[in-house]
């Protein structure tokens, strides 16, 4: 089971000190978070992609490439890469380059984006959100698997004899997740390709998360990638921890009450009871997170949002350290509960490479074994 953090890269005024970090500070803070995540033993750091203030993460591969150079082990990912408004050719090139530089420690999560004006800013129409996601990914999928592509579609200029360079590292494309909150077409898409499905899980009702994951699992089986229990599922979540749960609630409340995403809505108590937001002790976070598997099944990746709403870097790094303390506990609990045969981890570059080598060796083995069997 992989555990990690994902950031939306918001610049939000800290309501307790009335200070606001600069873009320069926020960018460096995100790097510091990723380094801390590796240091404390987390598995994944994922960056959002936004093209409007107050967000800084417009260029994820630049940031992830920089982090790759400063880390050894952590997987670099996105949450999410906009498959609708980015040119799939540029995604193919950028992420293959990142994959080479990071030694294969790269996967990416595709999403449609939730900021309406981004579509017209990038020359697209939001009403084509689903068709764009389908067409663009179909092209991206081919660009990473076919050396020379002839292609024609509706949303970008046609390609004749095009080769995306660099080719994926070792000829193995980065693993892809598809993220969506409510669109069955995206669960269907993830299932069709045998890719991962990620639900951000932050806005419940739980029933919606369950419905999307169940559809993905059923269709993953339908398309012959394995049983529904073997499908690759990731979830988001958001936490704020202190040793004593009352301290966590007291400290987090002003951030909750003033956050652009929650402020003026329901109370912190109500929101924590009706969504996965967990504000409390490390033990409460462990228990709450383990409950997720009860409604989506055994899954492979859990990402936490810990750096939003104006929380200062010092606090965020403390949160990551506490995650580092509880992840081994969660990992062993998840694995203890996981039935045999259900993958613990999503595919990685190393596991895909090993699987390919095993598959290549298989026919030879079969040939070698045949005379023995006949004898």
């Amino acid at each position, binding site marked *: 089971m992989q555990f990690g953090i994902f950031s939306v890269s918001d610049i939000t005024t800290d309501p307790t000190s009335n200070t606001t970090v600069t873009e320069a500070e926020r960018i460096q803070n995100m790097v510091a978070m990723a380094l801390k995540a590796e240091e404390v033993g987390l598995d994944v750091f994922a960056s959002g992609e936004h093209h409007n203030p107050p967000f800084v993460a417009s260029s994820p591969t630049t940031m992830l490439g920089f982090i790759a150079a400063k880390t050894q082990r952590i997987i670099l990912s996105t949450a999410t890469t906009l498959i609708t408004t980015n040119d799939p050719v540029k995604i193919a090139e950028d992420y293959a380059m990142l994959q080479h530089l990071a030694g294969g420690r790269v996967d990416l999560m595709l999403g449609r984006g939730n900021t309406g004006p981004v579509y017209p800013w990038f020359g697209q129409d939001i009403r084509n959100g689903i068709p764009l996601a389908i067409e663009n990914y*179909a092209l991206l999928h081919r660009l990473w698997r076919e050396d020379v592509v002839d292609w*024609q579609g*509706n949303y970008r200029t046609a390609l004749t004899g095009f080769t995306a360079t660099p080719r994926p590292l070792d000829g193995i494309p980065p693993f892809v997740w598809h993220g969506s909150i409510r669109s*069955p*077409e995206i669960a269907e898409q993830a299932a069709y390709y045998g890719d991962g499905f990620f639900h951000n899980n932050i806005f419940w009702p739980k029933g919606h998360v369950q419905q999307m994951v169940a559809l993905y699992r059923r269709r993953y089986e339908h*398309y012959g990638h394995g049983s529904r229990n073997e499908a690759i599922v990731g979830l988001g979540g958001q936490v704020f921890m202190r040793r004593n749960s009352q301290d966590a609630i007291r400290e987090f409340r002003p951030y909750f009450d003033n956050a652009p995403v929650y402020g003026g809505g*329901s109370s912190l108590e*109500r*929101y924590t009871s009706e*969504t996965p937001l967990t504000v409390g002790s490390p033990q409460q976070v462990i228990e709450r997170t383990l409950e997720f598997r009860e409604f989506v099944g055994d899954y492979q990746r859990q990402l936490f949002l810990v750096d939003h709403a104006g929380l200062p870097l010092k606090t965020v790094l403390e949160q990551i350290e506490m995650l580092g303390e509880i992840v081994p506990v969660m990992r062993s609990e998840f694995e203890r509960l996981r039935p045999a045969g259900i993958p613990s981890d999503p595919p990685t570059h190393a596991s895909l490479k090993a699987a390919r080598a095993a598959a290549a060796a298989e026919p030879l083995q079969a040939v070698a074994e045949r005379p023995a069997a006949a004898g």
Partner: protein
Amino acid sequence: MSGPRSLVVVSAGLSQPSSTRLLADRLAAATEHELHRSGIAVERRTIELREHAQDLVGQLLTNVPSPSLQDAVDAVLAADGLIAVSPIFNASYSGLFKLFFDVIEHGALAGVPVLLGATGGTARHSLALEHAMRPLFAYLRADAVPTAVYAATEDWGQADAPADASLADRIGRAGRELAQAVTSRERTTMRDEFDDPVPFEELLRRSGST
């Protein structure tokens, strides 16, 4: 056709009791009466929007529906007939009434028979039903019956209105229209896109790329 029809009543009255709820109950009773005469059983559920006011604001600000609000919305979406009643404030239905219909996805009420009602201090506001509330339901593609009922304060005391124009007459006529629409409507089961997703090959084919 077996089983009772579900009649869902949405009342946006603010006080308790409210004349909006009073009108909503009368409209529901008249509709039920007509359906019963045709031998159709009715399950009535009344939703007081006042009870969901905080949750409506919460959902619009944070995207998270509360379980009780979700339950109310689900009831409306599954209704065979809907009665929607609001007080008229400043030339239109109340903000609370609009908040509720703002969390309903476009198209989800398509073809659902709806009876519109409104209340206000004087009859001078009665055309708000036709100029404000009816277009809202036209946009939602609901099937609003021709008679919409407005009850001014004085209507509750007027027994000597001209024939066919008293509040009771209008309620009776509207109830008959809604009952008729509910009876004649083919019950369509919406295709569940989670139970029965569009196969990916079809999504790819629609995209037209090669």
